[in-house]
């Protein structure tokens, strides 16, 4: 089994599975939200904020935010390990790849916390 210290679960198989489970959640949320906006052409603020006031919608959105974090990490990690290689960058590849992963991970963490703030409001 191939393991790497920087991938999400230290196992390619688990990452593969996490990518798919999170993908299904993201797809369901996307279709739900697109459907909601499409079916409510004259949507008002009361409708919109009323939707996000519901507990189930907040839980659904938070679950999607977790899925989004997992999905983007695995995706950006895959891209970084595919393209930021010694063949492309020479001896700086490991440092460049690590920095890229740090930036992606940090950005996603900030976005996650911000998303929680938006959903639960402080």
């Amino acid at each position: 089994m191939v393991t790497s210290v920087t991938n999400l679960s230290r196992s390619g198989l688990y990452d593969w599975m996490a990518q798919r489970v999170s993908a299904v959640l993201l797809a369901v949320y996307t279709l739900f939200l697109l459907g909601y906006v499409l079916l409510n052409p004259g949507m008002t603020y009361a409708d919109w904020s009323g939707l996000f006031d519901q507990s189930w919608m907040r839980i659904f959105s938070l679950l999607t935010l977790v899925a989004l974090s997992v999905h983007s990490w695995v995706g950006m990690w895959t891209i970084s390990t595919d393209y930021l290689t010694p063949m492309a960058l020479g001896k700086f590849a490991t440092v460049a790849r690590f920095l890229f992963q740090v930036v992606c991970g940090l950005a996603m963490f900030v976005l996650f916390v911000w998303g929680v703030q938006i959903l639960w409001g402080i």
Partner: protein
Amino acid sequence: MSVNIAVNSKRPVNLDLRTIKLPVTAYTSIVHRISGVILFVSIAGLLWLLDKSLISESGFEQVQSYFQNPLVKLILWGVLAALLYHLVAGIRHLVMDAGVGEGLESGKRGSQAVIVISAVLIVLLGVWIW
């Protein structure tokens, strides 16, 4: 370029993508990646819009007025086009995980289907936005 760091051999290597004729499956694959990166970069903007639209009635109306701007419409179309493409290509991945459409010919047909379906959806999306 120091290619030999990775592969210590004298074998000829051609990885110049500009001179390689790629099959249709390679194009749908790379566009799936590119659309994924576009979506990752777009998360901040989408969260900002969600925040503004939920924080107050005037914020909601402001977001609605942004969507009247032709440039914003174009960017929104681009981001949602990336989302639709990524979604359609992702569903094809799940179908292939189930063992359907993994062959050479069926894989090509799957890629062509992804292109046609997402193109139709993206055009419909454009009609809806404008």
